[in-house]
Protein backbone atom coordinates (compact mmCIF):
# COMPACT_ATOMS: atom_id res chain seq x y z
CA UNK A 1 0.00 0.00 0.00
CA UNK A 2 2.63 2.51 1.14
CA UNK A 3 4.65 1.50 -1.88
CA UNK A 4 1.80 2.34 -4.23
CA UNK A 5 1.28 5.71 -2.57
CA UNK A 6 4.97 6.58 -2.94
CA UNK A 7 5.04 5.37 -6.54
CA UNK A 8 2.03 7.48 -7.40
CA UNK A 9 3.55 10.45 -5.56
CA UNK A 10 6.64 10.29 -7.70
CA UNK A 11 4.64 9.72 -10.90
CA UNK A 12 1.72 12.10 -10.50
CA UNK A 13 2.52 14.74 -7.91
CA UNK A 14 5.98 16.04 -8.64
CA UNK A 15 5.37 17.08 -12.25
CA UNK A 16 4.41 20.58 -13.35
CA UNK A 17 1.17 20.62 -15.36
CA UNK A 18 2.63 23.14 -17.79
CA UNK A 19 6.01 21.72 -18.83
CA UNK A 20 5.19 18.15 -17.61
CA UNK A 21 8.68 17.86 -16.14
CA UNK A 22 9.58 17.43 -12.46
CA UNK A 23 8.97 20.75 -10.68
CA UNK A 24 11.75 23.29 -10.88
CA UNK A 25 11.37 25.88 -8.08
CA UNK A 26 7.64 25.31 -7.62
CA UNK A 27 5.38 28.21 -6.61
CA UNK A 28 1.91 27.82 -5.14
CA UNK A 29 -1.15 29.78 -6.25
CA UNK A 30 -3.93 30.76 -3.79
CA UNK A 31 -6.01 27.83 -5.19
CA UNK A 32 -3.15 25.54 -4.01
CA UNK A 33 -2.17 24.40 -7.52
CA UNK A 34 1.58 24.55 -8.13
CA UNK A 35 3.80 25.18 -11.15
CA UNK A 36 7.47 25.88 -11.89
CA UNK A 37 8.32 29.54 -11.41
CA UNK A 38 9.51 29.80 -15.03
CA UNK A 39 6.34 28.24 -16.43
CA UNK A 40 4.16 30.62 -14.40
CA UNK A 41 6.21 33.64 -15.45
CA UNK A 42 5.83 32.66 -19.10
CA UNK A 43 2.08 32.15 -18.67
CA UNK A 44 1.79 35.51 -16.88
CA UNK A 45 3.61 37.22 -19.78
CA UNK A 46 1.32 35.53 -22.28
CA UNK A 47 -1.87 36.62 -20.54
CA UNK A 48 -0.79 40.21 -19.87
CA UNK A 49 -4.00 41.61 -21.34
CA UNK A 50 -6.18 39.49 -19.03
CA UNK A 51 -5.91 38.75 -15.32
CA UNK A 52 -3.72 35.74 -14.59
CA UNK A 53 -5.73 32.55 -14.10
CA UNK A 54 -4.69 29.18 -12.72
CA UNK A 55 -3.92 26.88 -15.68
CA UNK A 56 -5.56 23.97 -13.87
CA UNK A 57 -8.74 25.40 -12.30
CA UNK A 58 -8.93 28.81 -14.07
CA UNK A 59 -9.36 30.68 -10.78
CA UNK A 60 -8.21 34.29 -11.14
CA UNK A 61 -4.96 35.02 -9.33
CA UNK A 62 -4.12 38.37 -7.74
CA UNK A 63 -0.35 38.41 -8.12
CA UNK A 64 1.66 39.97 -5.29
CA UNK A 65 3.40 43.26 -6.13
CA UNK A 66 6.65 41.34 -6.66
CA UNK A 67 4.94 39.18 -9.31
CA UNK A 68 5.23 35.41 -9.63
CA UNK A 69 8.41 35.51 -7.55
CA UNK A 70 6.40 36.74 -4.57
CA UNK A 71 4.17 33.63 -4.53
CA UNK A 72 4.96 31.15 -1.76
CA UNK A 73 7.52 28.39 -2.32
CA UNK A 74 6.40 24.85 -1.64
CA UNK A 75 8.91 23.34 0.73
CA UNK A 76 6.92 20.11 0.86
CA UNK A 77 7.20 19.38 -2.87
CA UNK A 78 10.85 20.35 -3.00
CA UNK A 79 11.90 18.13 -0.11
CA UNK A 80 9.73 15.25 -1.36
CA UNK A 81 11.43 15.49 -4.75
CA UNK A 82 14.87 15.65 -3.16
CA UNK A 83 14.16 12.46 -1.25
CA UNK A 84 12.72 10.60 -4.22
CA UNK A 85 15.86 11.60 -6.12
CA UNK A 86 18.05 10.44 -3.22
CA UNK A 87 16.36 7.03 -3.29
CA UNK A 88 17.06 6.84 -7.01
CA UNK A 89 20.75 7.68 -6.53
CA UNK A 90 21.21 5.13 -3.72
CA UNK A 91 19.48 2.39 -5.71
CA UNK A 92 21.95 2.93 -8.58
CA UNK A 93 25.06 2.01 -6.58
CA UNK A 94 26.43 -1.48 -5.89
CA UNK A 95 24.50 -3.47 -3.29
CA UNK A 96 27.51 -5.03 -1.59
CA UNK A 97 30.60 -2.96 -0.82
CA UNK A 98 33.34 -3.16 1.78
CA UNK A 99 32.37 -1.78 5.18
CA UNK A 100 33.16 1.96 5.30
CA UNK A 101 34.23 1.72 8.95
CA UNK A 102 36.62 -1.29 9.16
CA UNK A 103 37.18 -1.56 5.38
CA UNK A 104 37.65 -5.27 5.95
CA UNK A 105 34.36 -7.05 5.63
CA UNK A 106 31.51 -6.79 3.18
CA UNK A 107 28.78 -4.45 4.43
CA UNK A 108 25.40 -5.98 5.27
CA UNK A 109 23.61 -2.74 6.08
CA UNK A 110 23.53 0.74 4.57
CA UNK A 111 23.06 3.89 6.68
CA UNK A 112 20.85 6.36 4.80
CA UNK A 113 22.13 9.40 6.74
CA UNK A 114 25.89 8.63 6.76
CA UNK A 115 25.66 7.11 3.23
CA UNK A 116 27.91 4.31 4.48
CA UNK A 117 28.03 0.55 4.04
CA UNK A 118 28.41 -1.11 7.44
CA UNK A 119 29.29 -4.73 8.28
CA UNK A 120 27.74 -6.85 11.00
CA UNK A 121 30.69 -6.24 13.37
CA UNK A 122 30.73 -2.44 13.03
CA UNK A 123 26.95 -2.08 13.22
CA UNK A 124 27.16 -1.93 17.02
CA UNK A 125 29.71 0.90 16.95
CA UNK A 126 27.61 2.94 14.55
CA UNK A 127 24.49 2.44 16.63
CA UNK A 128 26.16 3.34 19.93
CA UNK A 129 27.33 6.78 18.81
CA UNK A 130 24.84 9.47 19.88
CA UNK A 131 25.28 11.18 16.52
CA UNK A 132 24.18 8.17 14.55
CA UNK A 133 22.06 6.01 16.84
CA UNK A 134 18.79 7.22 15.26
CA UNK A 135 19.92 6.87 11.65
CA UNK A 136 17.75 4.66 9.42
CA UNK A 137 19.55 1.48 8.32
CA UNK A 138 18.64 -0.53 5.22
CA UNK A 139 19.63 -4.16 4.65
CA UNK A 140 22.12 -4.22 1.73
CA UNK A 141 19.99 -6.70 -0.18
CA UNK A 142 17.25 -4.03 -0.47
CA UNK A 143 19.56 -1.39 -1.91
CA UNK A 144 18.53 -1.98 -5.51
CA UNK A 145 14.82 -1.74 -4.66
CA UNK A 146 14.05 1.87 -5.55
CA UNK A 147 10.46 1.86 -4.29
CA UNK A 148 11.51 0.38 -0.95
CA UNK A 149 14.14 3.12 -0.63
CA UNK A 150 11.62 5.80 -1.56
CA UNK A 151 9.33 4.51 1.14
CA UNK A 152 12.06 4.63 3.81
CA UNK A 153 13.58 7.92 2.77
CA UNK A 154 10.37 9.87 2.20
CA UNK A 155 9.25 9.20 5.76
CA UNK A 156 12.46 10.60 7.32
CA UNK A 157 12.73 14.06 8.83
CA UNK A 158 14.87 16.07 6.42
CA UNK A 159 18.14 17.74 7.36
CA UNK A 160 18.49 21.50 7.65
CA UNK A 161 19.81 23.23 4.51
CA UNK A 162 22.10 25.51 6.54
CA UNK A 163 23.21 23.30 9.43
CA UNK A 164 23.68 20.06 7.53
CA UNK A 165 24.04 17.85 10.60
CA UNK A 166 20.83 19.08 12.26
CA UNK A 167 17.39 17.64 11.53
CA UNK A 168 14.59 20.05 10.72
CA UNK A 169 12.21 20.60 13.59
CA UNK A 170 9.72 23.28 12.59
CA UNK A 171 8.22 25.16 9.68
CA UNK A 172 8.01 28.94 9.65
CA UNK A 173 4.69 29.92 8.12
CA UNK A 174 5.67 33.58 7.69
CA UNK A 175 8.84 32.93 5.71
CA UNK A 176 7.72 29.51 4.29
CA UNK A 177 10.97 27.90 5.46
CA UNK A 178 11.91 24.73 7.28
CA UNK A 179 14.34 25.26 10.13
CA UNK A 180 16.41 23.30 12.62
CA UNK A 181 16.90 24.20 16.28
CA UNK A 182 19.99 26.28 15.45
CA UNK A 183 18.22 28.34 12.75
CA UNK A 184 15.27 28.80 15.06
CA UNK A 185 17.34 30.58 17.68
CA UNK A 186 19.51 32.54 15.28
CA UNK A 187 17.36 33.55 12.31
CA UNK A 188 13.72 33.08 13.16
CA UNK A 189 13.39 34.50 16.66
CA UNK A 190 9.82 35.57 17.26
CA UNK A 191 8.50 34.27 13.90
CA UNK A 192 5.33 32.18 13.72
CA UNK A 193 6.05 28.48 13.40
CA UNK A 194 4.53 25.01 13.23
CA UNK A 195 6.30 22.10 14.92
Amino acid sequence: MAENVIQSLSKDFVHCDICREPYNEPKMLPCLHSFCIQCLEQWARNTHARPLSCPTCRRTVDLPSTGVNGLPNIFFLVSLMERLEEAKQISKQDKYCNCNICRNKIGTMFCVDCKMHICQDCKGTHNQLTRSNDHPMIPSENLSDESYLQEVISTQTPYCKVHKEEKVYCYYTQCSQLACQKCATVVHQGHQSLQ
Partner: protein
Amino acid sequence: MSSGLPRRIIKETQRLMTEPVSGISAVPDEQNARYFHVHIAGPKDSPFEGGNFKLELFLPEDYPMAAPKVRFVTKIYHPNIDKLGRICLDILKDKWSPALQIRTVLLSIQALLSAPNPDDPLANDVAEQWKMNESKAIETAREWTRVHAH
Protein backbone atom coordinates in the same frame (compact mmCIF):
# COMPACT_ATOMS: atom_id res chain seq x y z
CA MET B 1 14.81 18.26 -37.47
CA SER B 2 13.27 17.81 -34.02
CA SER B 3 16.33 19.09 -32.15
CA GLY B 4 14.59 22.39 -31.37
CA LEU B 5 11.36 20.66 -30.40
CA PRO B 6 10.37 21.28 -26.75
CA ARG B 7 10.42 18.16 -24.58
CA ARG B 8 6.75 18.60 -23.77
CA ILE B 9 5.81 18.24 -27.46
CA ILE B 10 8.00 15.13 -27.78
CA LYS B 11 6.39 13.61 -24.68
CA GLU B 12 2.86 14.40 -25.87
CA THR B 13 3.57 12.90 -29.29
CA GLN B 14 4.98 9.72 -27.76
CA ARG B 15 1.97 9.33 -25.49
CA LEU B 16 -0.47 9.91 -28.38
CA MET B 17 1.24 7.01 -30.16
CA THR B 18 1.52 4.60 -27.23
CA GLU B 19 -1.82 5.37 -25.53
CA PRO B 20 -4.11 6.66 -28.27
CA VAL B 21 -7.52 8.11 -27.37
CA SER B 22 -10.44 5.96 -28.48
CA GLY B 23 -11.86 7.20 -31.79
CA ILE B 24 -9.04 9.69 -32.32
CA SER B 25 -5.74 9.40 -34.15
CA ALA B 26 -3.09 12.13 -34.36
CA VAL B 27 0.08 11.50 -36.35
CA PRO B 28 2.87 14.07 -36.70
CA ASP B 29 3.88 15.05 -40.21
CA GLU B 30 7.16 13.55 -41.41
CA GLN B 31 8.49 16.96 -42.45
CA ASN B 32 7.16 19.03 -39.55
CA ALA B 33 6.79 17.64 -36.02
CA ARG B 34 4.52 20.55 -35.05
CA TYR B 35 1.95 19.62 -37.70
CA PHE B 36 -0.39 16.70 -36.99
CA HIS B 37 -2.68 14.73 -39.28
CA VAL B 38 -5.76 14.03 -37.19
CA HIS B 39 -8.72 11.71 -37.68
CA ILE B 40 -11.77 11.78 -35.43
CA ALA B 41 -14.51 9.15 -35.67
CA GLY B 42 -18.04 10.61 -35.58
CA PRO B 43 -19.42 9.88 -32.08
CA LYS B 44 -22.10 7.24 -31.59
CA ASP B 45 -25.70 8.55 -31.48
CA SER B 46 -24.71 11.79 -33.21
CA PRO B 47 -25.54 12.79 -36.81
CA PHE B 48 -21.83 12.28 -37.51
CA GLU B 49 -21.81 8.59 -36.48
CA GLY B 50 -20.04 6.38 -39.02
CA GLY B 51 -18.03 9.30 -40.40
CA ASN B 52 -14.26 9.59 -40.34
CA PHE B 53 -13.32 13.25 -40.12
CA LYS B 54 -9.92 14.52 -41.13
CA LEU B 55 -8.49 17.53 -39.30
CA GLU B 56 -5.18 19.35 -39.22
CA LEU B 57 -3.57 20.51 -36.00
CA PHE B 58 -0.62 22.87 -35.74
CA LEU B 59 1.36 23.74 -32.61
CA PRO B 60 2.47 27.39 -32.85
CA GLU B 61 5.92 28.55 -31.73
CA ASP B 62 4.66 29.64 -28.30
CA TYR B 63 2.72 26.42 -27.57
CA PRO B 64 1.78 25.53 -24.80
CA MET B 65 1.41 29.21 -23.83
CA ALA B 66 -0.78 29.61 -26.94
CA ALA B 67 -3.49 27.20 -28.13
CA PRO B 68 -2.93 24.76 -31.00
CA LYS B 69 -4.50 25.76 -34.31
CA VAL B 70 -7.04 23.15 -35.38
CA ARG B 71 -9.20 22.98 -38.52
CA PHE B 72 -11.53 20.41 -40.09
CA VAL B 73 -10.32 19.35 -43.51
CA THR B 74 -13.37 17.16 -44.15
CA LYS B 75 -16.55 19.10 -45.00
CA ILE B 76 -18.97 18.96 -42.06
CA TYR B 77 -22.47 20.35 -41.42
CA HIS B 78 -22.20 21.70 -37.86
CA PRO B 79 -23.32 25.05 -36.34
CA ASN B 80 -19.94 25.62 -34.66
CA ILE B 81 -17.76 24.74 -37.66
CA ASP B 82 -17.68 26.97 -40.75
CA LYS B 83 -17.14 26.31 -44.46
CA LEU B 84 -13.38 26.65 -44.07
CA GLY B 85 -13.37 24.09 -41.28
CA ARG B 86 -12.65 26.64 -38.54
CA ILE B 87 -13.95 25.60 -35.15
CA CYS B 88 -15.75 27.76 -32.59
CA LEU B 89 -14.53 26.35 -29.30
CA ASP B 90 -13.64 28.49 -26.28
CA ILE B 91 -10.58 26.46 -25.24
CA LEU B 92 -9.03 27.14 -28.65
CA LYS B 93 -9.39 30.88 -28.00
CA ASP B 94 -9.70 32.86 -24.77
CA LYS B 95 -10.24 29.82 -22.54
CA TRP B 96 -6.94 28.19 -23.54
CA SER B 97 -4.77 27.03 -20.65
CA PRO B 98 -1.23 25.59 -20.82
CA ALA B 99 -2.42 22.69 -18.65
CA LEU B 100 -4.49 21.49 -21.65
CA GLN B 101 -2.83 19.29 -24.25
CA ILE B 102 -3.31 17.92 -27.75
CA ARG B 103 -5.34 14.95 -26.46
CA THR B 104 -7.67 17.09 -24.32
CA VAL B 105 -8.26 19.49 -27.23
CA LEU B 106 -9.15 16.62 -29.56
CA LEU B 107 -11.46 15.12 -26.93
CA SER B 108 -13.24 18.49 -26.66
CA ILE B 109 -13.69 18.58 -30.44
CA GLN B 110 -15.07 15.04 -30.35
CA ALA B 111 -17.50 16.19 -27.63
CA LEU B 112 -18.52 19.19 -29.74
CA LEU B 113 -19.63 16.76 -32.45
CA SER B 114 -21.90 15.07 -29.90
CA ALA B 115 -23.29 18.35 -28.62
CA PRO B 116 -23.66 21.05 -31.31
CA ASN B 117 -24.34 24.47 -29.77
CA PRO B 118 -26.40 26.61 -32.19
CA ASP B 119 -26.58 29.45 -29.65
CA ASP B 120 -22.88 30.19 -30.13
CA PRO B 121 -22.63 29.74 -33.90
CA LEU B 122 -19.76 30.11 -36.28
CA ALA B 123 -21.67 29.00 -39.36
CA ASN B 124 -24.74 31.28 -39.13
CA ASP B 125 -26.82 29.60 -41.83
CA VAL B 126 -26.30 26.17 -40.29
CA ALA B 127 -27.11 27.48 -36.80
CA GLU B 128 -30.33 29.11 -38.12
CA GLN B 129 -31.38 25.82 -39.68
CA TRP B 130 -30.43 23.94 -36.48
CA LYS B 131 -32.67 26.23 -34.40
CA MET B 132 -35.61 26.47 -36.82
CA ASN B 133 -35.84 22.86 -37.93
CA GLU B 134 -33.56 20.63 -35.90
CA SER B 135 -34.65 17.33 -37.43
CA LYS B 136 -33.98 18.64 -40.94
CA ALA B 137 -30.58 20.00 -39.85
CA ILE B 138 -29.68 16.62 -38.34
CA GLU B 139 -30.76 14.90 -41.56
CA THR B 140 -28.51 17.27 -43.58
CA ALA B 141 -25.60 16.60 -41.18
CA ARG B 142 -26.13 12.82 -41.70
CA GLU B 143 -26.21 13.29 -45.45
CA TRP B 144 -22.97 15.33 -45.44
CA THR B 145 -21.33 12.71 -43.22
CA ARG B 146 -22.32 9.95 -45.71
CA VAL B 147 -21.08 11.92 -48.71
CA HIS B 148 -17.90 13.57 -47.40
CA ALA B 149 -16.63 11.77 -44.29
CA HIS B 150 -15.25 8.43 -45.29
